[in-house]
């Protein structure tokens, strides 16, 4: 996973609540068997509307998505995270994220930042008034900074440490091989098996 320490970029204010993962990446894109090439599928239906925020020329190259509450609801598809990253987003700010989407984002180095809805709206307003305005998301300081706005955010220490160092979860878990083997040895015999071994 790519490490995330600090990122500064222009924003896309997305004033919609309950942006579900079917909107982020529609199901027909899920037939791909790779982790890349999803950028054209990002918000595919909404991008057909010329006035959609992502189609506005001044939003080109923006890397910070500032979204309404309950972002990423619905399907567990990690493709939603890949689509946002493939398109160029480095971080998403919202007052609430769906649990599975949040977990997926943090495993891929897409930093999802939870801020109070009032601050999210202030960031959206700032970016709407000045599309060139930059937002800094600083994971080391756990802080979001923009003109006239400084807000701290929470992230559990373990997730932060993994993101800052770009660590692969599987390697960390495999360091506990002895614990896993010990657990396996004491599992009850009535637990089902899919295969005879």
């Amino acid at each position, binding site marked *: 996973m790519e490490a995330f320490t600090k990122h500064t970029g222009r924003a896309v204010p997305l004033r919609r609540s309950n942006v579900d993962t079917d909107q982020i990446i529609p199901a027909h894109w899920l037939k791909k068997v790779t982790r890349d090439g999803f950028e054209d599928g990002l918000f595919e239906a909404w991008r057909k509307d010329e006035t959609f925020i992502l189609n506005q020329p001044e939003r080109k190259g923006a890397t910070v998505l500032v979204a309404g509450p309950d972002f990423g609801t619905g399907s567990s598809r990690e493709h939603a995270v890949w689509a946002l990253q493939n398109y160029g987003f480095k971080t998403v700010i919202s007052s609430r994220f769906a649990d599975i989407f949040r977990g997926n984002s943090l495993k891929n180095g897409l930093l999802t930042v939870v801020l109070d809805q009032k601050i999210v709206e202030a960031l959206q307003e700032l970016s709407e008034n000045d599309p060139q305005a930059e937002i800094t998301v600083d994971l080391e300081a756990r802080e979001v900074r923009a003109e006239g706005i400084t807000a701290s955010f929470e992230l559990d220490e373990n997730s932060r440490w993994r993101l800052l160092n770009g660590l692969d979860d599987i390697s960390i878990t495999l360091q506990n091989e002895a*614990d896993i083997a010990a657990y396996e040895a004491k599992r009850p015999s009535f637990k089902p098996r899919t295969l005879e071994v």
Partner: protein
Amino acid sequence: MGRTLAEKVWDDHVVRRAEGEPDLLFIDLHLLHEVTSPQAFDGLRKSGRQVRRLDLTIATEDHNTPTLDIDKPIADPVSRVQLETLRKNAAEFGVRLHPLGDVEQGVVHVVGPQLGLTQPGMTVVCGDSHTSTHGAFGGLAFGIGTSQVEHVLATQTLPLVRPKTMAITVNGELPDGVTAKDLILAIIARIGTGGGQGYVLEYRGSAIEKLSMEARMTICNMSIEAGARAGMIAPDQTTFDYLEGRVHAPKGEDWDAAVAYWKTLKTDEDAEFDAEVVIEAAELSPFVTWGTNPGQGAPLSAHVPDPASYEDASERLAAEKALEYMGLEAGQPLRSIKVDTVFVGSCTNGRIEDLRAAAELLKGRKVADGVRMLVVPGSARVGLQAVSEGLDVVFKDAGAEWRHAGCSMCLGMNPDQLAPGERSASTSNRNFEGRQGKGGRTHLVSPQVAAATAVLGHLASPADLSDAPVAAGV
């Protein structure tokens, strides 16, 4: 202090606990399908890793599979590649796979329980958010992303932060004609699509205890639509009776040991939940959605709400956008909404009891002119059972299409889709924009409401059918 059911199951699966770290949890059953696994197998290959516990892993094909002409090559080349990729991965790594055409093929959340692989007190994961279905047996079951699929394949564990617990207590008894689907839609409308975020839901109370296993699966299935990764119901005699004799259920002494353990799996009387919601079953009636998220629902007897009536600005905006997308007017009676398509199926309502309920209402009646009705069993086995009971004939006689098993029109990854502007009454779980096909409009309903709607051509409940003629001699 006592523990909740969720806490008991969690504690029983902790492989490693350390200060400042997530718990490392052992996973008892890992279900795979073609959509969320290819990148995970790629990851294993790149790092030279194997599947740690093939005996706790099983795969089936469901999301992409066609429901017609299943003996012919799959027409969509991209879907074909994805299914072939799963077949290659299963063969290379040694994973048990039930492919299209196999008698055990079907929607992954229908297959696990019917094989008896889903049991009380287990941890069950799958790269699919409706894995919450399996919580109906009293286990912790939740959807995971592809990175976690790879993690479970490699280690049979997941590092997880302990969720909070929420009790959803449903008192009394569901009135006649009110189903598990109506109940869960009403719960989601009450707590909202984000209400369960960070929680495991435990459904309890007399109305829940009276439900069949299949109805319990319908409830737990849609926990994710309330924002909760998992929902669960304490196992009881209904659970044990469902499991006994199934292929992978414990046998002999193992059965006795298992039942003794399963009986301990209930929330202690002095346990405390982090949140509690109480619902009176008697107040419920058939429930449908009018909007573009599963929380935007109302009793069928109600009217399309006026967005101006919402105090919260983002809810008001969401309602405005939903009405625009759905092509509905504020104040319109929900019963006046005409549909072109009715879909009965999915991991929510594609089991035999669902098909029986729909068939009972369709028997001797006809699907309305201009309405297309698709009936898609949740698994090949459910399809065979339905045929043995003659349900397929009932559906076909009524003018419905009887199809092969799969996810089908729930998410339209296969050819079963809505055309732009088409409107469905669907027994599936999501009414998101474009979920069933680009520009398609979805109303989530129970199988009974789906059948009544098919006959009358507009959203309707079985009670509305009393006036519709039943063909003579049936």
